[in-house]
């Protein structure tokens, strides 16, 4: 590819990259420079590789010799360079960009640790009904995590993964979207599905892989998917959902829909190639998408300090030319407000927005992991208690007079009851029938799949004792 790649870069410089639909100022500046590039192309395309280093080298030698020879110059070409993307000014100072800024990018917050609205904070007002649904769903998610986790420990399901500590991200971000917005999740955002109306019975059906599971028992637990709720089936390989979400956003853009795509991922995902491809494409193709990064400090056992040396993930959004914001992921009001504003921007301007939410993975990575082996207990405990997003938000609704202990107890006990019932039903429901082994590989099964099914059925008939009794034939 190497030889082709270098050529195509030249070709890219020669032509105007095409954009469509919503025009932006970016494009017009590019168009204006296009004519210049074409007319002097032979010179231009050599410029980035050879001219620039030479320029730097000369300045460097000049400085080293201690000869201060700079003269004021009236040549307009010395004022700056009309370069694709906009004007670039010249600088006599040899200055490398710092790898790490002196001050880290600040984190947008609305509620303080005690559930007070920080004075002067700008945020989206929410009414009592929505505010309470956010709280109730956060509690439901917490309860669901505890009970399914236990079910896995009892050997009733093979795998589970909790969202503990990230309830505000899950629910408040979902609350800021509309049902027409398309969600391409990772696997720590079941709360988005919950907010959209996925019932506890539907969650249980999936985790037990019974015949009512929308995935027909083909995906491992917690890989939910629901077309009705515009929530794409979860893909296990990290980051693959990011470029795919850009594709979904592109489709929305072509249909001129008043909706956006949102994709969730963790801090570890930012190291995958797909992450970088997705951000770059989203910026270049100008599509309505929200990239939502849950920076929870840990990618299984890898801390963010070993994942990247940049100032978190938010800076990467900016590096790709995407409007970006860092929010307190444990502050439901901040998450809600930021996503709400992001949604408006991505749709009205047809541009991507990047949101980095700072949070902490309080639970283990999954039921296959014991995180106490690689991180201090007091760190986990601090985030579980002092920084718990659910209790912080509860303080705020209590202060508004919308919540009290009695309602709290009722809610928790009802959710628990409902969930235990759902699990019992899910466990007793039949497993998918044998023909489901072969359906959906293709839109229409080819002959070899019919042959396989026929041969399997004959074999079961001959040796019924060798096949599980819980598979409906």
């Amino acid at each position: 590819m190497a030889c082709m790649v270098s050529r195509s870069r030249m070709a890219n410089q020669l032509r105007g990259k095409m954009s469509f639909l919503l025009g932006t100022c970016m494009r017009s500046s590019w168009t204006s420079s296009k004519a210049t590039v074409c007319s002097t192309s032979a010179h231009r395309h050599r410029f980035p590789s050879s001219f620039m280093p030479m320029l730097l080298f000369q300045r460097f030698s000049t400085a080293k010799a201690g000869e201060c020879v700079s003269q004021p110059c009236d040549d307009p070409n010395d004022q700056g360079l009309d370069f694709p993307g906009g004007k670039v000014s010249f600088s006599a100072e040899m200055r490398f960009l710092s790898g790490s800024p002196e001050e880290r990018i600040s984190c947008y917050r609305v509620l303080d640790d005690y559930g007070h609205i920080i004075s002067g904070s700008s945020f989206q007002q929410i009414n009592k009904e929505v505010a309470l649904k956010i709280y109730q769903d956060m509690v439901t998610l917490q309860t669901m995590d505890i009970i399914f986790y236990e079910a896995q420990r009892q050997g009733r399901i093979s795998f589970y993964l909790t969202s503990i500590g990230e309830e505000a991200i899950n629910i408040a971000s979902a609350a800021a979207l509309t049902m027409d917005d398309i969600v391409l999740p990772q696997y720590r955002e079941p709360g988005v599905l919950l907010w959209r109306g996925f019932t506890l019975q539907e969650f249980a059906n999936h985790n037990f892989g019974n015949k009512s599971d929308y995935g027909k028992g083909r995906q491992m637990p917690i890989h939910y998917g629901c077309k009705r709720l515009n929530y794409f089936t979860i893909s296990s390989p990290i980051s693959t959902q990011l470029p795919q979400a850009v594709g979904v956003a592109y489709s929305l853009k072509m249909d001129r829909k008043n909706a956006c795509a949102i994709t969730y991922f963790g801090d570890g995902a930012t190291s995958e190639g797909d992450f970088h491809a997705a951000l770059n494409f989203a910026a270049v193709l100008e599509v309505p998408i929200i990239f939502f990064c849950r920076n929870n400090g840990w990618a299984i056992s890898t801390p963010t300090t070993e994942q990247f040396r940049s100032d978190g993930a938010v800076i990467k959004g900016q590096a790709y030319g995407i409007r970006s914001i860092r929010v307190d992921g444990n502050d439901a009001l901040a998450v809600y407000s930021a996503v709400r504003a992001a949604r408006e921007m991505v749709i009205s301007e047809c541009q991507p927005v990047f949101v980095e939410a700072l949070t902490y993975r309080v639970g283990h990575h999954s039921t296959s992991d014991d995180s106490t082996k690689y991180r201090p207990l007091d760190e986990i405990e601090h985030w579980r208690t002092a920084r718990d997003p659910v209790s912080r938000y509860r303080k705020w609704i209590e202060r508004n007079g919308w919540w009290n202990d009695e309602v709290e107890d009722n809610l928790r006990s009802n959710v628990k009851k409902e969930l235990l019932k759902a699990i019992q039903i899910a466990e007793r429901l039949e497993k998918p029938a044998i023909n489901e082994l072969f359906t959906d590989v293709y839109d229409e099964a080819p002959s070899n799949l019919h042959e396989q099914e026929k041969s399997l059925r004959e074999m079961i008939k001959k040796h019924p004792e060798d096949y599980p009794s819980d598979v409906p034939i």
Partner: protein
Amino acid sequence: MLGVARRRLGCGGFSSSMLGQTLERIRLSNSILPRSFASAAKEITVRDALNSALDEEMSADSKVILMGEEVGEYQGAYKISKGLLDKYGPERVIDTPITEAGFTGIGVGAAYYGLRPVIEFMTFNFSLQAIDHIINSAAKSNYMSAGQISVPIVFRGPNGAAAGVGAQHSQCFASWYATCPGLKVLCPYSAEDARGLLKAAIRDPDPVVFLENELMYGESFPVSDEVLDSSFCLPIGKAKIEREGKDVTITAFSKMVGYALKAAEILSKEGISAEVINLRSIRPLDRATINSSVRKTNRLVTVEEGFPQHGVGAEICTSVVEESFEYLDAPVERIAGADVPMPYAANLERMAVPQVEDIVRAVKRTCYRSVPMAATA
């Protein structure tokens, strides 16, 4: 491919007037195809067959988009997308940054949500940078989501050995992709195949890997009026008997079909009647056509340019052993590329891919016109 590289290099130095001329040529070329259709000879190149198939399907369905490196302004590294940008605009003919994983993932996502993307790889060698999206997402999503997410997408581009471009540009991926359930894998040989199969691939609701051959793009084939009709389409999963015969069956796909036909011609002069099967579809594989031919001829030679181990020939051989073993009068012969990365030097390169005389010799061995290889060992 080197030729292309040179032309591309030249493009970097275009003056604005040259650029203008090029654009002029491009605009004119939009009308070249119908004219050549109307000519008496009725021959079209594989390139024009692919181009017209894309054009017609894009015209018939506004959900069809084309995406890849250099497919728009540059009209494709091999000019398969000639004229399409002018006709369908940059919203549907999308030049992308140079990230295979990026545009493949975006294509898969767009297919998840209502579009019917055609993704062009400059060559299939580069699809390896995006293979996760093809195997783990495109091929499996319909199954994993239990039919909630269908993925109507075509991945296309030149595959297999070209000429003088070395190991990283010369490899056949037919058996790689054909091993994966959920994908369909098509390999056209002629202009008729190229038109009929590409149109079928674009209309198909499942993900299709469409493997072209760079050296075939410029080849012309006679075509019928039926093939030139915009409704023309070929069935996926059906092989074509290119030449009927009674003494031996030769299976081949892509460029090797031409070699097999040449071999059959030579063999006919020596009294051997070879049946040549153009596989067209590697997955699903037309086992019925292959086995019924072998049951008639009782002999089989498989031909492919790819590596021998776990290749398409191995799968065909297994199918015949499973279904028609008792009909075989001779051991199956398998002709494949050498089990080495492709060397660059022309003399070595020739030795690394099957030649017509290799096929002729293999057929003679199975027909006992020469000493079988096993006997000489």
